[in-house]
């Protein structure tokens, strides 16, 4: 094809224990905005790192404008006309805008000429920016402009944008989209990585969808509904949930009109969330990542406080109580991020056990830690959940992701919670261990605990949940029993209420 800019053929990259990209093949046309769509961990970042020369592929070839393209390092990719705007900005706070731009260029002009060129480009593309300002004084949107201008000054043929809107305000997103459309009209190709479906539908000409490192489909986003895109992303094949004999007891958790602003303006605010959870019930919450999952867990665990009356646990209003106070009567939680959130990386497994189980498991008495008991607690978790480690004195950092996941989940389950809130319980865990964690959760529910599982994995949610609800832009859909839910209904819930209405009109 003459109008193909970059052709990717069978690109494969494996890391120890995980295949990040498996035989990925697609083409990016000239002057095309091409979306790369997929969940967290689907292999999007690894793929673009290979295109940008940060990571070398194990197998597969790339062709740029008809010529073979295998950049050994980023500067070679830049010279070939590939530029990249990073998800986490690679900027230097203490340096000025012009200095930051110069660092990203192979042969920067003299400082005075460079400042003039920055002004030209920023006016041309509607990205106002003062070259003399220090980056530390810029907003997230302005910082991104620095990155974009740094790329544009090198007249790229392909601009890679890794989740560019995750830190932007809606107004800044509009400005960015205008710039991207202008670039496209000038013939620049853009590879746009995101998991925000609406953005992709309004901006992109073509989409390639990745799941578990494999290309699972491609489509024209403007002609595909958000629901279909969501289905492609999260996978549509799952076992029909079998009917379960559930004995529901009294209400354990009652959430009423929970509202929480986004943290530091970044992230998703929670909007008007209400639901109830009964003893013995498992509520599965699905949704595309970044729609309020972390925020919901924080609001329930006590990491972030909400207004009085919003969160009621066992009949008591716990909205203003911190995590420690909520843990004592049995509201336990396990967040998604293992290192740094669920576990302190440089502390031993025993110490990490004491951190969440100290009071409830009686490991701390009169302010003193009973190390013997703590060690037995850690050993108990290690044995019951088959954590592969030399012993409880090993630092949490030293465990592989899956093993640490087994430990942090097990640590909460062993404490016999009344309510367990858990985000991504089997993320990065191998199939057998995942099954045993799920079984442990089911056993816990059978014993009378209420469980709230947040997960990206629909199959998992269908397997263990009694009820299913979806988060979309911080709103929670009405929970519905999983029996009788079909893929179409789930897709409607994932796509959000807005999508549901249009789909109803269409059908």
């Amino acid at each position, binding site marked *: 094809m003459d109008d193909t800019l970059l052709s990717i053929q069978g690109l494969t990259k494996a890391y120890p224990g995980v295949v990040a990209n498996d035989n990925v093949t697609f083409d990016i046309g000239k002057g095309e905005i091409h979306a790369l769509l997929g969940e967290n961990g689907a292999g999007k970042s690894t793929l673009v*790192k290979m295109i940008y020369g940060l*990571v070398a592929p194990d197998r597969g070839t790339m062709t740029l404008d008809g010529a073979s393209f295998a950049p050994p390092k980023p500067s070679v990719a830049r010279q070939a006309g590939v530029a990249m705007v*990073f998800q986490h900005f*690679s900027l230097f706070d203490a*340096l000025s805008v012009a200095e930051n731009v110069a*660092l990203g260029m192979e042969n920067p002009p003299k400082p005075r000429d460079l400042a003039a060129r920055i002004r030209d480009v920023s006016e041309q593309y509607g990205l106002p920016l003062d070259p003399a300002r220090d980056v530390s004084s810029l907003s997230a949107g302005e910082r991104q402009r620095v990155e974009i201008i740094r790329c544009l000054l090198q007249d790229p043929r392909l601009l890679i944008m890794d989740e560019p809107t995750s830190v932007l305000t809606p107004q800044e997103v509009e400005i960015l989209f205008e710039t991207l459309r202008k670039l496209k009209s000038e013939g620049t190709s853009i590879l746009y990585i995101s998991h925000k479906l609406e953005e992709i539908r309004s901006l992109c000409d073509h989409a390639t969808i990745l799941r578990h490192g494999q290309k699972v489909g491609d489509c024209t986003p403007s002609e595909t509904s958000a629901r279909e895109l969501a289905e492609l992303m999260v996978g549509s094949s799952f076992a029909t949930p079998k009917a379960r004999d559930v004995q529901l007891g009294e209400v354990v958790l009652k959430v009423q009109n929970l509202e929480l602003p986004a943290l530091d303006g970044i992230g998703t605010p929670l909007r008007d969330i209400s639901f109830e959870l009964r003893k013995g019930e498992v509520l599965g919450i699905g949704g595309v990542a970044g729609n309020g999952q972390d925020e919901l867990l924080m609001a329930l665990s006590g990491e972030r406080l909400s207004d009085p009356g919003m969160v009621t646990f066992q009949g008591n209003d716990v909205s203003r109580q911190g995590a420690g106070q909520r843990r004592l009567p049995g509201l336990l939680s396990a967040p998604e991020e293992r290192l740094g959130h669920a576990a302190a990386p440089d502390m031993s497994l025993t110490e990490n056990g004491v951190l969440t189980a100290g009071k409830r498991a009686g490991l701390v008495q009169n302010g003193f830690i009973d190390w013997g008991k703590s060690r037995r607690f850690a050993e108990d978790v290690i044995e019951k959940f088959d954590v592969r480690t030399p012993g409880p004195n090993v630092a949490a950092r030293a465990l592989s992701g899956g093993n640490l996941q087994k430990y942090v989940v097990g640590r909460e389950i062993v404490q016999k919670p009344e309510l367990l809130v858990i985000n991504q319980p089997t993320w990065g865990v191998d199939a057998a261990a995942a099954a045993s964690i799920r079984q442990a959760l089911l056993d816990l529910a059978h014993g009378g605990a209420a469980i709230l599982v947040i997960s990206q994995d629909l199959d998992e949610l269908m397997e263990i949940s009694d009820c299913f609800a979806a988060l979309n832009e911080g709103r929670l859909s009405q929970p519905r029993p999983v029996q009788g839910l079909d893929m179409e209904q789930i897709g409607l819930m994932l796509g959000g209420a807005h999508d549901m209405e249009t789909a109803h009109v269409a059908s």
Partner: protein
Amino acid sequence: MDLSSISPVLLVASIMVSATPILFAAIGELVVEKSGVLNLGVEGMMITGAVVGFAVAVNTESPLVGFVAAAVAGAVLSLAFGFLTQHLLSNQVATGLGLTLAGLGLSALIGKPYEGMKSPTLPKLDLGPLSDIPGVGKMVFSHDIMVYVSILLVAAVWAFLKFTRGGLILRAVGESHDSAHALGYKVVRVRMIAILFGGACAGLGGAYLSLVRVPQWTEGMTAGAGWIALAIVVFASWRPWRILIGAYLFGGVTVLQLNLQAAGAKVPVALLSASPYLITILVLVIISARGAHGAPASLGRVFHASN
């Protein structure tokens, strides 16, 4: 107290001489810290430079060869620090302290045969008419070459950091090593070069002590000058010209209090001896209170290029 016994001309001249060792060490450490590395081994590299420079100068009878050898010795010692911290990822604070202890011990060992000897010293530079200016000529323009080299070095470091691409990359590495790595710069290589430069400068500073200022070898003769150099880097908010001011201020107070002691000031001697340190700390606190830090953001952090 007889203040008239203090000659202003001699005072300024001796301030310049007494500040030069600290100036060398501090400007070197500034470059190291700008690259994001905290090398607390300045004292150890200085004294190693002092003894190696002295020994080589005595044996070759050429002080300039002594200075070159001192720079090489400081750089070699800093290479050990660089290898440990940059390649083996050891803790920079602990490694730097270890380097100081190692340098002190090593220098005592090397210096044993040279105790009590006198070294050949640098001739005063004849700057022609400049040196003949009354007063100022004797104050500023009749020193040995290394005094002027140290000031030129400050100017060169300032220009390098401000105007050159190499300086920009060095600052970028010290500011955010992860970002610099993402842009494809060789973080470890840049830092190793900075560490070597810092070591060489500290070696020169040490040699200036043993070859010009004193000029003989005594064990432990740096007597904390390396630590003062480290403090001055902070006090100068990592800016080259302020390093010059800081070093001359410290040197000035040191010389002044010696003169005051000699003049019989009615202040306890212990307090006078402590005054350079007290004044340096005072200025440091004032600068910190004003919030003008400018410390490189990655200072002292371990870098490993793992994705």
